[in-house]
């Protein structure tokens, strides 16, 4: 018996997932819980954010369910408010912010730059635990305490609300440090741990995107930390900075909040753009068009993102001069995004495009993000924003950029790196079906909201004028389609884990280091020997010439 077991063990490949696998459940859990391996930490983040995503997504379905009818059908006002607040808080702070940087970023970044690990592996593990503790406190407080402030915590409502705002504040404060430390870790990693020969201009674009993301994480997140701290102080001591009655100014809170929360939407979208660059080059088998422009546009977005927070305050009674200033700055941030979109499109030119599932999501990203970006131009304009502010138009715009952008890229990235992460392939056929259901469901869900919003439907309403019924019902049907597609994805991924086909080292024909120099799934120390980089990340020309040669030989042989 024993000999057979050890023989089976020997046959089985050793990789980063295997230590502790056969030594009983406790050893197994301990090796995972105390690991400092960036790949395992990435996987644990992945599990945690997926749980957050399912919880937040269920809340989204609950919201849409109530909105099927203009009258109250399911919950009381307080319950509805708690549901939409939970949806917002979980999705933004516990899902989208850590989704790409902490999961895919953690897994891929050291592989991309040819490093053994991130610069501070123990700090990385500490960030994970901070996230779990903070997220845990916040979620429990939200669900038991029925927090009803919305994810924006505007004062004075957040102070007068008798729900567990205090604990959610504490939880998010802790989770915020996870974000700061991850960003810090990545920046140092990119600075100091690049493999020999990898200059800044030879890094994959995903790394540029993560670098820009990290700048924002390091510099913007502390502001929300202090803001939450002040919110708590306001509630416990009556400091008065934000309380109009005590000589303070509630609009100041909005300044503080958006000084973090605007840059943070770029924390969400920038790594998504990084994934796009990887997907598009890999599946068109073509070098990126305008590497420097794509790389520096990431940096430009990160820098400008700090200057536009005031466009969330156009109707708050902010000074008219400041309004105009912010409207101006807001337009600047659109330009680098447009440059990226054009460059991706140009990359497709004369490529060799394979319509595989990760590329489908890349395509969806470009469509959705174009819609989200163009409606962003409309919202940057002062007179138009004043009409559309806090209506369903905003909801639709936000979901087109955040779901259509970040979540779509996240799903695309998971499809892309799944074989590398777990060494298994998934059903391409199912993936196509799930994609098209999502594509239809998403548009059905959020396109009607543009119209409803500009017709004047305010957001955060649980009962509404009867005339808006049709828009809301379309949205609700769409939300079910999205849910269906997500469930399909979940099931074929689980099936792939159980009995998926074993993945080759480079299933997509990628050119970056994680495909060319690392096994699927990787070893514990990533690279067998330190890679030396001699050329850029998307060096497909040589490959295509090789292919051409092979083809010519084949054709000659056939004829």
């Amino acid at each position, binding site marked *: 018996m024993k000999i057979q077991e050890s023989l089976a063990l020997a046959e089985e490949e050793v990789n980063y997932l295997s230590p502790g696998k056969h030594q009983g459940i406790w050893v197994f859990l301990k090796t995972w819980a105390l690991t400092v391996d960036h790949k395992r930490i990435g996987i644990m983040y992945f599990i945690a954010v997926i749980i957050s995503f399912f919880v937040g997504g269920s809340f989204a379905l609950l919201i849409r369910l109530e909105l099927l009818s203009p009258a109250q059908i399911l919950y009381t006002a307080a319950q509805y408010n708690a549901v939409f607040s939970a949806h917002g808080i979980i999705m933004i702070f516990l899902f989208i912010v850590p989704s790409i940087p902490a999961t895919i970023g953690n897994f891929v970044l050291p592989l991309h730059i040819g*490093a*053994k*690990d*991130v*610069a*501070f*592996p123990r700090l990385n593990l500490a960030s994970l635990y901070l996230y779990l503790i903070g997220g845990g406190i916040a979620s429990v407080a939200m669900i038991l305490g029925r927090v009803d402030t919305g994810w924006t915590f505007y004062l004075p409502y957040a102070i007068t609300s008798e729900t567990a705002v205090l604990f959610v504040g504490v939880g998010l404060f802790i989770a915020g440090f996870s974000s*700061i430390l991850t960003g*810090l*870790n990545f*920046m*140092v990693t990119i*600075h*100091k*741990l690049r493999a020999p020969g990898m200059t800044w201009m030879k890094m994959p674009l995903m790394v540029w995107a993560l670098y820009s993301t990290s700048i924002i994480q*390091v*510099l*913007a*997140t*502390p*502001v929300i*930390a*202090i*803001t939450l*701290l*002040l919110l708590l*102080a306001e509630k*416990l*001591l*009556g*400091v*008065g*900075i934000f*309380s109009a009655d*005590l*000589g*303070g*100014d509630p609009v*100041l809170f909005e*300044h*503080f909040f958006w*000084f973090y929360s605007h840059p943070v939407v770029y924390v969400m979208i920038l790594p998504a753009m990084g994934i796009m660059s990887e997907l598009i080059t890999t599946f068109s088998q073509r070098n990126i068009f305008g590497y420097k422009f794509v790389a520096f546009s990431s940096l430009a977005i990160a820098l400008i993102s700090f200057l536009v927070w005031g466009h969330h305050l156009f109707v708050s009674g902010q000074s008219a001069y400041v309004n105009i200033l912010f409207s101006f700055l807001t337009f600047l941030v659109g330009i680098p995004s447009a440059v990226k979109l054009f460059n991706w499109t140009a990359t497709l030119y004369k490529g060799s495009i394979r319509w595989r599932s990760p590329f489908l999501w890349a395509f969806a990203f470009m469509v959705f993000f174009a819609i989200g970006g163009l409606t962003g131009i409309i919202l940057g304009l002062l007179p138009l924003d004043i009409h559309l502010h806090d209506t369903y138009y905003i909801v639709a715009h936000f979901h087109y950029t955040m779901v259509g952008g970040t979540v779509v890229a996240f799903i695309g990235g998971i499809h892309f790196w799944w074989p590398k992460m777990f060494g298994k392939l998934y059903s391409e056929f199912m993936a196509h079906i799930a994609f098209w259901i999502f594509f239809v469901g998403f548009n059905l869900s959020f396109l009607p909201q543009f119209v409803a919003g500009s017709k004047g439907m305010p957001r955060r309403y649980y009962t509404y004028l009867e005339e808006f019924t049709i828009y809301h019902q379309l949205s609700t049907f769409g939300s079910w389609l999205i849910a269906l597609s997500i469930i399909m994805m979940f099931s074929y991924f689980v099936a792939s884990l159980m009995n998926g086909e074993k993945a080759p080292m480079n299933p997509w024909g990628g050119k970056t280091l994680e495909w060319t120099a690392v096994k699927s799934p990787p070893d*514990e*120390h990533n690279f067998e020997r*330190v890679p030396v980089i001699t050329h850029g990340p998307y060096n497909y020309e040589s490959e295509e010439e090789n292919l051409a040669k092979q083809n010519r030989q084949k054709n000659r042989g056939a004829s």
Partner: protein
Amino acid sequence: MSDDTAAVIVKSPKGFTDHKVGHHFQTADQEFSSAYIGTWLFLAQEVLFFSALFVAYAMFRNLYPEVFAYGSSVLDWKLGAVNTLVLLFSSFTMAMGIRSVQTNKMKAAFIFLSFTFICGLIFMTVKYFEYAHKIAEGTLPYDFFNSEISLETFSNVAGIENLPLFYGLYFVFTGIHGIHVLIGMGLIMWMIVKVRRKTLFAGYYTPVEMIGLYWHLVDVVWIFLFPLLYLV
């Protein structure tokens, strides 16, 4: 695990413990400069952490100049000045402590670091007396404010009803700074232990250098806080 053989080791003088460089670093220098950049990033993060408080200060000072003038005139600037000097001295001893480690003068390092720790202690003690005085007088943030005297005597000051706001800012500002000092003291204690255990030496002084940087930042914040709250 298997390639731990490749680990770089920084040799130490006799009697000290060698330092093993992290497995994912190629050289000791790479490890040091990673920690160095990381610390500076952390300090930049601290700058933004305090920024919101400075925004609030600037804004309300702008709105209620008389209240702030009155408020800062009531604070005891002598205690503030003493604290400033204490922190400046501690910064000096910190820098000297690091220098001593760099030159392998362990006894001096121990003395300098202990001085730094004691300075932190003095700072917090003075702070304690200031706080106790305010609590006794009732000049506290709004929910606990019960000092009728100052309000009545200075009813000629425009907007004096906003005085609790000044104290709110004062307590939040100094409180958060105080927490930073406490954390710094804990870290310095850890360094003292490390010096005693002889794990720091001229070839490896990364932690003490990084904690020094942090301690200087705490000093820098106070350099701004002191005139803003106590003087002008």
